[in-house]
């Protein structure tokens, strides 16, 4: 590539072998943002949505009222468990859910009416005040209440729009836009409330630009594109799900201490009309450039040195094909080559931390799965209890209608007590479960965060690879320079062409030196980002997990007490049937 025969032969041979790798390398880079931990997201969603479904279709379709009250305030809803704690001492009252819990309708006429209630019109704009409004939980809202700076983002009103002009398909492409409303007191925004319309493609662009600008940070992963786009997009469910996913994502971004102040986010939230960020397709179009340039680069016909400013980005797509190639060679040399690269990941602390985080990820995944099963089991028992209650209610009605003896009426009355208790208990199970879902969602959130951690660590790895590659290049350039010098000094009077080549080489070396310095600086910067983010993760994780455990436990206690009371009453009322037998 540099004109030296040995090298170009070697490289040419490699070229054919690694073309596939190069292609896949390119693809990988483009795709890196699409990484998603498919299993856990979709499974968890399925539990959530099935909970929601049963919500609607179950004869006992009830919306837990307590959640509405909790969400209405901007305070950390997880704080309420502390409030509940004071009530804890009083054996009669239990959780704060008691305050918001409305008494069930009377069962006097043995007719069951589903529990009706109104939504307080949560700012989320959702119709159902269900646990889907986990926006607060999505950001692990400690941030919105603990700092004085406030940035609240909400997503509403999906609408179908037509793409005009440049579509090849007659009738045009249609897509969905979402209304994104921001409320803030941060001075950077210059306004306290504003709205903008964005489509999903814009979100992808935002995410991509953030990942470029904030290498080394734990950037919240964006919601996934769906493979089956086109038709699926029209379905109501899909749009709803996506809307909520977007809101969650944006709120997570707003909760990140560094990213919330980013230009990219600001522009996304505020600038009307077309999103003024280079789209990912613009970046991808560099691919075409690169494919054209490569042959020239290989034969040393065009400037093929990595410019300093380019090293602050990982090699990807387009014109970086050559660089990708070199870095690939370097990484192969790292793995299989005999000599150690000149700079390696030496930070023991980092390596230890990385291992610990990998372990954490595994345990999070496991715990998240078990949490799902637990939620499902609680849901099932509540459902079955409700069905049992209903069956008894029907039986009570039957006995009462057909009663010919007083003993039947007595039995019917007993049965009604049990039926009522069963239905109440069923409702408590359901409410408790909705809360449990929200608390244990923390596990799921952190699991998603692990993706961001992977990404940040791989930023570090690729930055290191860039440095290593440049170092290798430098040393081979210097070697050639030495050889040239030695060769030309043998010829008396100097060799004009050789001297010229030497000058060019020295120039190349200088530029490469600069590039190396940049790359090293970038690498150090990323390392620092990694470090501070890990620290933040540890800190925040401690708080969030503690809140999760507390919330979970308090919820369990509260509802268990309620359920116990309901049954204790019935046990009391039927205690006459126990004859002292011993």
């Amino acid at each position, binding site marked *: 590539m540099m004109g030296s025969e040995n090298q170009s032969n070697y490289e040419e041979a490699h070229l054919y072998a690694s073309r596939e790798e190069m292609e896949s390398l390119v693809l990988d880079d483009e795709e890196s943002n699409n990484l998603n931990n498919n299993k856990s997201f979709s499974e968890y969603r399925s539990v959530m949505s099935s909970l929601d479904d049963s919500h609607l279709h179950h004869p006992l379709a009830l919306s837990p009222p307590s959640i509405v009250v909790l969400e209405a305030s901007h305070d950390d809803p997880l704080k309420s468990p502390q409030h509940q*704690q004071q009530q804890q001492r009083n054996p009669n009252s239990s959780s704060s859910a008691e305050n918001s819990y409305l008494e069930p309708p009377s069962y006097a006429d043995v007719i069951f009416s589903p529990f009706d209630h109104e939504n307080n019109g949560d700012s989320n704009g959702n119709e159902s005040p269900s646990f889907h409004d986990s926006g607060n939980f999505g950001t692990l809202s400690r941030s919105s209440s603990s700092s004085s700076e406030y940035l609240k983002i909400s997503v509403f009103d999906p609408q179908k729009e037509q793409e005009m002009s440049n579509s090849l398909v007659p009738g045009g492409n249609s897509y969905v836009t979402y209304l994104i409303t921001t409320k803030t007191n941060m001075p950077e925004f210059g306004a306290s409330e504003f709205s903008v319309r964005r489509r999903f493609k814009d979100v992808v662009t935002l995410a991509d630009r953030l990942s470029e600008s904030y290498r080394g940070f734990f950037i919240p992963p964006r919601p996934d594109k769906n493979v089956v786009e086109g038709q699926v997009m029209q379905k109501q469910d899909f749009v709803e799900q996506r809307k909520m996913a977007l809101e969650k994502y944006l709120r997570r971004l707003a909760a990140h201490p560094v990213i919330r102040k980013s230009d990219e986010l600001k522009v996304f939230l505020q600038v009307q009309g077309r999103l003024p960020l280079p789209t990912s397709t613009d970046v991808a179009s560099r691919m075409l450039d690169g494919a054209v340039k490569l042959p020239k680069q290989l034969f040393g016909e065009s400037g093929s040195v990595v410019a300093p400013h380019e090293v602050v980005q990982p090699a990807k797509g387009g014109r970086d094909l050559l660089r990708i190639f070199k870095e690939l060679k370097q990484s192969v040399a790292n793995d299989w080559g005999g000599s150690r690269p000149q700079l390696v990941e030496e930070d023991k602390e980092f390596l230890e931390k990385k291992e610990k985080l990998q372990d954490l990820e595994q345990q999070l995944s496991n715990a998240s799965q078990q949490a799902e099963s637990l939620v*499902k*089991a609680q849901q099932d028992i509540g459902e079955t209890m409700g069905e049992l209650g209903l069956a008894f209610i029907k*039986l009570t009605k*039957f006995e009462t209608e057909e009663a010919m003896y007083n003993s039947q009426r007595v039995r019917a009355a007993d049965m009604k007590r*049990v039926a009522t208790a069963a239905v109440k208990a069923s409702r408590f199970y359901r409410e408790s479960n909705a809360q449990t879902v929200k608390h244990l969602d923390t596990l799921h959130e952190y699991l998603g965060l692990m993706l961001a951690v992977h990404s940040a660590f791989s930023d570090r790895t690729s930055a290191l690879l860039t440095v290593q590659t440049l170092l290798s290049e430098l040393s081979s350039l210097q070697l050639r320079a030495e050889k040239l010098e030695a060769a030309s000094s043998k010829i008396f009077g100097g060799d004009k062409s050789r001297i010229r080549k030497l000058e060019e080489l020295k120039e190349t070396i200088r530029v490469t030196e600069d590039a190396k310095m940049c790359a090293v600086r970038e690498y150090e910067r990323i390392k620092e980002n990694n470090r501070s983010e890990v620290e933040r993760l540890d800190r925040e994780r*401690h708080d969030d997990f503690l809140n999760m455990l507390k919330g979970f436990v308090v919820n369990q206690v509260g509802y268990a007490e309620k359920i116990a009371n309901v049954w204790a009453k019935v046990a009391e009322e*039927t205690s006459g*049937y126990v004859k002292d037998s011993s």
Partner: protein
Amino acid sequence: MAMITTQQRSLSSSSGQSPRSPSSFSQQQQQPFLSVSVTDPVKLGNGVQAYISYRVITKTNFPEYQGPEKIVIRRYSDFVWLRDRIFEKYKGIFIPPLPEKSAVEKFRFSAEFIEMRRQALDVFVNRIASHPELQKSDDLRTFLQAEEETMERARFQETGIFKKKPADLMQIFKDVQSKVSDVVLGKEKPVEESNPEYEKLKHYIFGLEDHLAEAQKHAFRLVKRHRELGQSLSDFGKAVKLLGACEGKSFGKVFSDLGTKSESLSVKLQKEAHNLLMNFEEPLKDYVRAVQSIKATIAERANAFKQQCELAETIKLKEINLDKLMLIRSEKVGEAEIEYKELKADSEEASQRFEMIVRLMNEEIVRFQEQKTLDVGLAFHNFAKGQAQLANEIADAWRGLLPKLEACSSHT
């Protein structure tokens, strides 16, 4: 325990005697009593031939019985023999139901199944022993007292003669139900009693079975749900412990405690599942069986009524025939007269049989309703008590963690 309670209840409600306290044995000696307990299930035999045998202990002061105590070994088919014999002999009385013969091989020898069956068999025998009529049965005495070989011989004799197969019973049910539909469709002359109160009773019994079956189905599912919740609490607890291992020592301890609590609750849930099964679901199932037994009695009554009607019809024809013969002064008159007298006797018998069934049923239904209110009331109490206890245990377990969780947050 259950045996004594059932027996006590039945005795006091059926004979109207003053409640006896089980501790005063002197009373027991004066009043006639017959109490049975079915205990100690033991697996005998090998492979396909294997079966469970039970110890049946009888304590009584009945003069006909070898008292005061006698122990015999019986198996499920012996109980079936007893039920079939009594069903034949005591038409009109609601025969206490037997637990089902389980078809599933795997399940047949599970500890839970064996215990449930033992309990049900104990209740079965005691109900017979405390029924004022049934307790006088010779077959009962044979069952409770005869040597094992005698019992075996009696059981083998049954096959082919008296043994009512389930298929037969089903046929009778179908007859009863199809007769109703035939009448509705106008296909047949109603051979049904035109007794509005009895019609109401029949309608009640059939409807009751459906409703009860549904409730019992959900009760059974509830047992399963308890088990499932227990399992997932156990798994969750383990996962939480592992997660805690990723945290620091003191914070990790909280996770570990939570995980342990979760696992301990899992055990409590399994216990409650068992309690639910034995003391709530099984009584409901017993109720369903009792209703099915009443259906069998209904079928018997329909049979008896049909016989009575048919005989009445036949007599009318014979009367007409006899008159005809008398008119033509046939030699066959004598024969015919004898036949006629015999038929009249049969008819009288059939009427009496039918009327007794009617009378018995009227008494039985009152007793049945009262008994069931007591049985079901107790089952409800057990259900509520078990659920309350479980919920309290859950609340206590989780509550114990709160101080530790509080302590953690104050550190940060």
